[in-house]
């Protein structure tokens, strides 16, 4: 039996949830199984299995000392306790009751504490075995490892489908994103950093990334090449897969240019630059990056839709054959695909420490790199004398065109407020080296 091998032989704890996943049974059955096992094993050999319980009950938030003075067995005693109360300390008891209604409380307790816990409750609502383990738990938080285990081993199951088996509360109103939408924004961010690092390595090998990163990306790129044809053969998966490389490429362009700019920034020692502009900028980028998804994906969407239309026409017959089955598959596929791909992109940064972690917004500044040429809006200060003779300083947005090789004029960010002239050319350049990298995006976006 699974329980015996897990708890007795392996010596690992098991919770009802894990058990229900392992055996594909309803959680409530699993709860009963745990208790059954616990009772029978301990009947055979007392103390061989230790349990913890999930106790639900009503509890007075701050029971007075007296309640716990006498440890009770159960119902009978608590009745005894409550009756002498009003007579002995009427005022205090009333106060407590008035201030605090009994609160429903859920506790996970060790077997050893169960009695006390039950005694402290006013009313027991529900109780079940939470977990079994070979011996008393020193740190009850260890039980959370079961949660992670469920996650690792059964995370792939679609919880939108499995609720029937496990008895999770079902919410018929929640659906996964439709494919259309899923392609637009969410798919884009995580793969992008990976592609970026790939491009850096292949396009500019002089960057001196570690050797491992160079070999890894190549494999990756091969994979993504392979992915495309493969996806075409697969009916249901096509939409997801096809669009992804597309978006990636877009993202890559961004990255390429932005990373190309980065080395000089790194080479110069940015020490004299205050932290301030950095923070400002990073805050910006965070938003920026969010924005950038929109226009970008819009394009991608259009292209993809066109292609989809063609495809549909071709394969409509086939589609009809699958009909309902396909629907289900489609859902499954999104589920399976998305985490997998994300996982791989998650893994990447762990291997190569240099690469930015996709989950973290901070490294995404790279998205904000500039383009070769364009127009940008620049804030300029104009000081004018107004009717009353006061000097009024206004900020005016002006358009100006620029190209990449041109040195960027004063950054429009706060540091610019400090008179740049005072610092002289050197100061200005140093400021630019890092700040311009961050501050350019708002302009470049236009």
């Amino acid at each position, binding site marked *: 039996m699974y329980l015996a091998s897990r708890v007795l032989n392996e010596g690992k704890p098991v919770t009802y949830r894990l058990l229900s996943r392992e055996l594909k049974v309803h959680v409530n059955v699993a709860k009963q199984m745990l208790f059954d096992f616990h009772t029978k094993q301990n009947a055979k050999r007392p103390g061989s299995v230790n349990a913890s319980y999930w106790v639900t009950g009503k509890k007075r938030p701050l029971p007075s000392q007296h*309640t716990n003075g006498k440890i009770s067995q159960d119902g009978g005693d608590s009745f005894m306790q409550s009756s002498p109360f009003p007579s002995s300390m009427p005022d205090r008891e009333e106060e407590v009751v008035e201030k605090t209604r009994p609160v*429903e409380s*859920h506790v996970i307790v060790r077997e050893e504490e169960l009695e006390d816990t039950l005694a402290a409750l006013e009313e027991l609502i529900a109780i079940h075995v939470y977990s079994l383990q070979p011996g008393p738990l020193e740190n009850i938080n260890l039980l959370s490892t079961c949660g992670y285990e469920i996650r690792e081993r059964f995370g792939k199951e679609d919880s939108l489908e499995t609720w029937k088996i496990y008895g999770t509360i079902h919410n018929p109103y929640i659906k996964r994103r439709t494919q259309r939408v899923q392609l637009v924004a969410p798919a884009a961010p995580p793969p992008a950093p990976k592609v970026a690092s790939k491009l850096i390595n292949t396009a500019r090998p002089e960057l001196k990334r570690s050797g491992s990163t160079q070999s890894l990306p190549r494999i990756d790129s091969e994979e993504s090449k392979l992915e495309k044809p493969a996806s075409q053969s697969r009916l249901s998966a096509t939409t997801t897969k096809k669009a992804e490389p597309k978006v990636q490429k877009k993202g890559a362009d961004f990255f390429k240019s932005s990373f190309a700019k980065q080395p000089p920034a790194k080479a110069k020692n940015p020490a004299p630059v205050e932290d301030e502009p950095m923070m400002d900028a990073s805050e910006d980028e965070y938003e920026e990056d*969010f924005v950038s998804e929109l226009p970008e994906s819009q394009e991608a969407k259009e292209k993809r839709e066109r292609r989809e239309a063609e495809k549909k026409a071709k394969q409509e017959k086939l589609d009809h054959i699958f009909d309902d089955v396909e629907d289900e598959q489609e859902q499954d596929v999104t589920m399976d695909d998305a985490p997998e791909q994300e996982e791989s992109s998650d893994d990447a940064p762990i291997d190569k420490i240099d690469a930015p972690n996709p989950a*973290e917004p901070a490294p995404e500044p790279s998205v904000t790199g500039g383009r070769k040429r364009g127009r940008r809006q620049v804030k300029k200060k104009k000081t004018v004398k107004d009717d009353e003779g006061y000097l009024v300083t206004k900020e005016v947005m002006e358009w100006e065109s620029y190209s990449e090789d041109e040195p960027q004029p004063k950054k429009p960010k706060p540091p610019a407020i400090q008179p740049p002239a005072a610092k002289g050319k050197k100061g200005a350049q140093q400021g630019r080296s890092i700040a311009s990298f961050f501050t350019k995006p708002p302009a470049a*976006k236009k």
Partner: protein
Amino acid sequence: MADGSGDFRQCSPFQTDFSTNERSQSAYTPLHTFDLPRGADKHYQQQYADMYFLRLAQLKPAVEEQAEEAWGSMKIGSDTPQHVDRVLDVRQGIPSWVVGTVFVDMPLKPNVLDDISKDHWISAPPTRERYTTDGKLDMMIEDESGRLKIIGDGLDTLGLVTGCVIAILGHENIDGVFNVIDTKYADLPRQPERWEKDEASLALSGGKVKQKRPRADRVAIISGLEISGDSGNDLALVMLTEYLIGESSHPSRPDGSKKISRLIVAGGSLAHSSPIPSREEVVAKKGHKKYGYDSAAYDASPTARLDTFLSDILPTLPVTLLPGVTDPASVAIPQQPLHAALFPQSRALANSPALKNDPHLGFDSVSNPWEGDIDGWRFLGTGGQTVTDVQKYLDVDSTLDIMDAMLRWRCIAPTAPDTLWCYPFQEDDPLLVKECPHVYFAGNMPKFDFRTETGPLEQTVTLISVPKYSETGIIVFLDMETLEVTHIELGVGNPKP
């Protein structure tokens, strides 16, 4: 088991037939009141003075109305107090009333100039519990014309903070100080009817307006999960998951977790993840300073854990997630939604930026503060910074009093931009309360509390202060039909008597 109790301590044969449970729908219309312009449209060069100007300009009529009503026909001695339009037009000795913005100067208030002189502005100034000291406190009222120092016996107890717009009644004494007898504030604004917004949009689209709506269930509000890298309170999070998805409790219980139709996380989901570390954190980290991205210092596990938590409950429970002071969102209010990149797993169930108002999808990462309609009721919620910051000015322990006052001042962040970081709004200030919410909640509060307040126009607001889950294990429930507030506690280990 036959008696329907939740006792699962029984041996085989097992009971195996369990009814399936379905949640009811949570009608959900988020309002994007606090969304900032994106990208290049977002500027930080505007002067904050404009915010005060806007605030005064927008609130002045309402405050004047209240004051006129109260003091218009009032006699002080033989005189009727005059309404003076500008603060500087107040004449000595004449009883008058004037509307302006309060400014409170306190010795312990952080001062930008001090910080610069100490060259300390790399990190946030040390956070104080309170700015109050004994007695020493300068209060002024100002408008676009100038400032007027105000004194009065009642002022200390009133609980005025910088930034609130009030009317004061009194007279200027010989020292040029305004002696305040009475004050008035704008009080609660108009409150929309339940379902008003939904019905309006229905009427526009030609739908049936008075439709029969299903009975709404409860909304759960938590805050301060404070997921951190260490595994100290992991089990608490696991418990929360199991409770919310309904696997832990007996499903047939009428008021169990299946009656929850939405979860609101009111900030503080992650611990120590603010992009700008507090001074304490900076000190603790000292030693290895590295510019740029330091992958060694970055720990992805808290965000991963949060993502896991969300993706576990999302299939069964829609979630509205507000950022809080410790979350990796922007630091200035309104904090913008936590970025989708933080949630690789759960965002499959999220509203995409393109379809923000699609109510079918489960996960909505929203701004802080946040406003929206849930089951027809107007909700207004914050991650708690606004309240905590006001509390620093006052010797008031009840956060509900503060929340109540903020609604009556019609400004949910009066102390921004003075002591609370804030986006420099230029044309419109969303932090002003234009419509009175039905429910106003604040996360990360020191303790759980709630009460119902009523306004002059029969508005009723349920104020809820939501404590940190990581400290109290409290989940707050709000019945969406009666707006009754209840709570439960989740805990681990031996409950101390």
